[in-house]
């Protein structure tokens, strides 16, 4: 059964306050090279068949909110 991996991320123009907190924590641990962190979601779908237009539809209708998020997907198996 094919697996589709959907990743959803906050649009780059938006402040990711959770990501900023994580970046600050990494810096605090001594990883000064970390300038920023962005947190997204990984949603793995097990599907009977892969039809790209339908996957895109799922992302637009439910998995991502187009006002604040971008999405991408890949078939991984």
């Amino acid at each position, binding site marked *: 059964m094919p697996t589709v991996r959907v990743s959803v991320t906050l649009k780059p123009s938006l402040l990711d306050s*959770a990501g900023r907190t994580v970046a600050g924590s990494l810096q605090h641990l001594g990883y000064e090279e970390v300038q920023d962190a962005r947190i997204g979601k990984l949603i793995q779908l097990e599907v009977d068949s892969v039809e790209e237009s339908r996957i895109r539809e799922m992302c637009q209708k*439910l998995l991502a909110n187009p006002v604040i998020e971008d999405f991408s997907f890949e078939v991984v198996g």
Partner: protein
Amino acid sequence: MKVAVLQFPGSNCDQDALKSLREDIGVGAEYVWHDESSLAGFDAVFVPGGFTYGDYLRCGAIASQSPILQETKRFANEGRPVIGVCNGFQILAESGLLPGALTRNINQKFICDDVFLRAETRRSIWTSDVDKVVRIPIAHGEGRYIIDADGLKVLEDNEQIAFRYVSADGNLDDSANVNGSVSNIAGVLNKQGNVLGMMPHPERATKELLGGIDGLSILKALSLVKV
């Protein structure tokens, strides 16, 4: 006037809403479960706060796909009054009935406090009687209103900004913007003005026992609508 107070798994302000509508606004109110698909017999909809479906995926995202929300969209498009408070606002935004989106508060904290609001338009039934700064409680972790510059301009041009966070004396300043919302926005209207979404809880400010009655000026719209 009979108001449908929608209930989802995870709603937790449904009882507050029902009681304040019945006892303090003096209108009829009944619960309607999320898998119902009819609003027959109702004249208005109140989408209460909570953590519907555990706020999985995004706040309000799953609830926005429920049967009762499809019916609520149809109902709203007939021009009838709909209000969403807190998680209810998130649900209405996710459903597309209202523009924009709600995201994590800028300070990462769940904020439980009183805020001051100024009505930015009087053209909607929801704001027509809000003629002074009101003090209303908030309780949310994800209330930072987001909309892009073009969307904000549309809101301003159409007078769709219902409420902004302001100081006690009504001034628009950054320190009043508790959650970091775009342009201090606390509540928005749809284009027609019959649908209101707001993060603050007017139903928690309808009797002195609750600490204030400023919510009355918003919710009493429901007692004025001719049905």
